[in-house]
């Protein structure tokens, strides 16, 4: 093994990491035990001892995992070693970084710590996690990793960021209140109300059994509020920077040129206000698990709620030259897609393709042609009878699949050829 010249020393995570990792479990446990430990409860001694032993074990395992974990930057790789019995050495090539998040749960903020999370591209990609580092150190490491991933030297001075947008809290709250999840919630409440009027006994049964749903709802609304609270979008020298959060904060950096697709969603209920949601898709597999992981939502909301004007301004920065004239499909497509028809349209220029679709909410997707992985022309039996065809543009993103639906078959074939040529040219430049 040839060691590179610039081998940095090994680093450890912050010593408080196991405490914070165990913290969530602990808070939950304390809430549960608080009920049983109230004076007067005849708690058996062995029960208390068991719990203390479990607590000590949790801390102990955390401490061991901290002891055996270390990381360093080796040339153009980030290397993380972990594991006591089965040593696990992970190597993350920095050139494949798709985005870097600095995540700070409440407990970590109390201690001034932060977690660094690297989203990697590639087929077998995972996520590199460094939990937890000092907040200042996390920022420095993020800047260093980003610079290395782009092949530049890390800059000592951080050039000022160009603030593109900040989200007013009032509008965020309004957008959460006016939305389809809230409608679902109200329908459930109304159903419960009628049930209570008809038979109080049944209502109690429903209430006691729907606790999990209620908790799920509250968590959902909370996550939305927290995810969009005080959101600012800024353009830094190394990419797009998103910061948000009320209690748990995230600061995410999407290096320029890593955006696979952009999607704008206009829900029906927001239309009177002229609001829309703008989402950005980056490459990498969807990752489950991890405490309060913001990537559990498939797409990152660049703009949870905003006016068309704001969305357009952001879009111009994320995908320059994305404004394209669109054409509608032939009228006979109404027979194939009766609900979608009135939204269907698409257009392209030499850099970008845009498609609009949706049944209730209007969904507009922009795909830069440099990011098109493959193209497919698909024609189902109904479409064949109507002389229609659909073109799919496959990207490495996780959620946005641009489909140019129900075009005239001859036009679709011609466009498949043109899009192939254009995306080849875009790839070369």
């Amino acid at each position, binding site marked *: 093994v040839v060691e590179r010249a610039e081998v940095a020393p090994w680093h450890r995570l912050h010593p408080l990491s196991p405490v914070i990792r165990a913290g969530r479990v602990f808070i939950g446990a304390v809430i549960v035990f608080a009920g049983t430990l109230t004076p007067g409860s005849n708690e058996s001694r062995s029960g208390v001892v068991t719990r203390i032993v479990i607590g000590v074990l949790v801390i102990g395992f955390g401490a061991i995992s901290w002891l055996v974990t270390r990381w360093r930057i080796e040339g153009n790789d980030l290397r993380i070693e972990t594991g006591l019995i089965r040593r696990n050495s992970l190597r993350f090539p920095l050139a494949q970084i798709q985005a870097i998040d600095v995540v700070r749960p409440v407990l970590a903020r109390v201690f001034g710590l932060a977690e660094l999370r690297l989203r990697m591209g590639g087929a077998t990609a995972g996520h590199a996690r460094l939990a937890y580092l000092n907040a200042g150190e996390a920022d420095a490491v993020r800047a260093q990793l980003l610079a290395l991933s782009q092949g530049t030297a890390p800059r000592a001075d951080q050039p000022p960021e160009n603030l593109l947008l900040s989200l007013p809290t009032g509008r965020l709250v309004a957008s959460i209140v006016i939305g389809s999840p809230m409608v679902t919630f109200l329908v459930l409440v109304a159903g419960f109300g009628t049930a209570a009027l008809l038979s109080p006994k049944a209502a109690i049964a429903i209430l006691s059994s729907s606790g999990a749903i209620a908790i799920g709802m509250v968590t959902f609304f909370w996550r939305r509020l927290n995810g969009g609270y005080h959101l600012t979008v800024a353009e830094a020298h190394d990419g797009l920077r998103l910061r948000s959060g009320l209690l748990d904060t995230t600061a995410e950096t999407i290096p320029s040129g890593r955006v696979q697709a952009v999607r704008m969603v206009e829900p029906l209920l927001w239309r009177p206000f002229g609001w829309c949601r703008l989402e950005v898709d980056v490459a990498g597999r969807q990752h489950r698990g991890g405490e309060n992981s913001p990537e559990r939502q498939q797409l990152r909301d660049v703009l949870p709620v905003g006016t068309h004007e704001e969305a357009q301004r952001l879009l111009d920065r994320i995908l320059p030259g994305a404004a394209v004239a669109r054409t509608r499909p032939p009228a006979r497509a109404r027979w194939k897609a009766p609900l979608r028809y009135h939204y269907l349209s698409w257009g392209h220029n030499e850099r970008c393709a845009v498609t609009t679709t949706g049944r209730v909410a209007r969904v507009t997707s922009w795909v830069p042609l440099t990011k098109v992985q*493959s193209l497919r*022309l698909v024609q189902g039996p109904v479409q064949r009878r109507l002389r229609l065809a659909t073109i799919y543009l496959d990207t*490495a993103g996780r959620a946005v699949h641009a489909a140019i639906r129900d075009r005239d078959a001859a036009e679709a074939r011609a466009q498949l050829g043109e899009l*192939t040529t254009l995306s080849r040219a875009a790839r070369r430049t």
Partner: protein
Amino acid sequence: VATDPEPALTQPAEAWLHPSPRLGTMRRVEIVAASVVAAIAVLGVAGLAALAGAANFTVPALLLAVIALAGFLGDRFAQRRVRAWAYLEREDDLLVRRGVMISRLSVIPYGRMQFIDVIAGPIERAFGLATVRMHTAAASSDARIPGLPHEEAARLRDLLARLGEARAAGL
């Protein structure tokens, strides 16, 4: 077939390559085997019923007729599907065409291929065939060519790997 390539994708029909005719035989054998298994099951149940004293010949006979018809129709459809598979190597990309009911035409640029699998299951191996599957960074671009003779599969794999390396583009 409705997927005659449009002008920019035009290639003479004979330029398209097809899976080996042995793939048709293989599908036929699979369908015959499945039908035979189903027929044996029907006969077995009928035999047990006859032993139990409830001799009835119309139901098993009807079931056997249905199995035979399903096998026949299934085979016809499978043969059409085998004939619909085609692929074409162009300068910068590979075209794969398939499907009878839903016809699909995929364009996979060589530079976008991340890795290439050659898969041969036990039945395919018995016929000396293999499936080549191309993977891009997009999970939705599912391109595979079944029923290639081993040497053709190996040729395609090496060609795609070489071209993919020469034209590789980052994410």
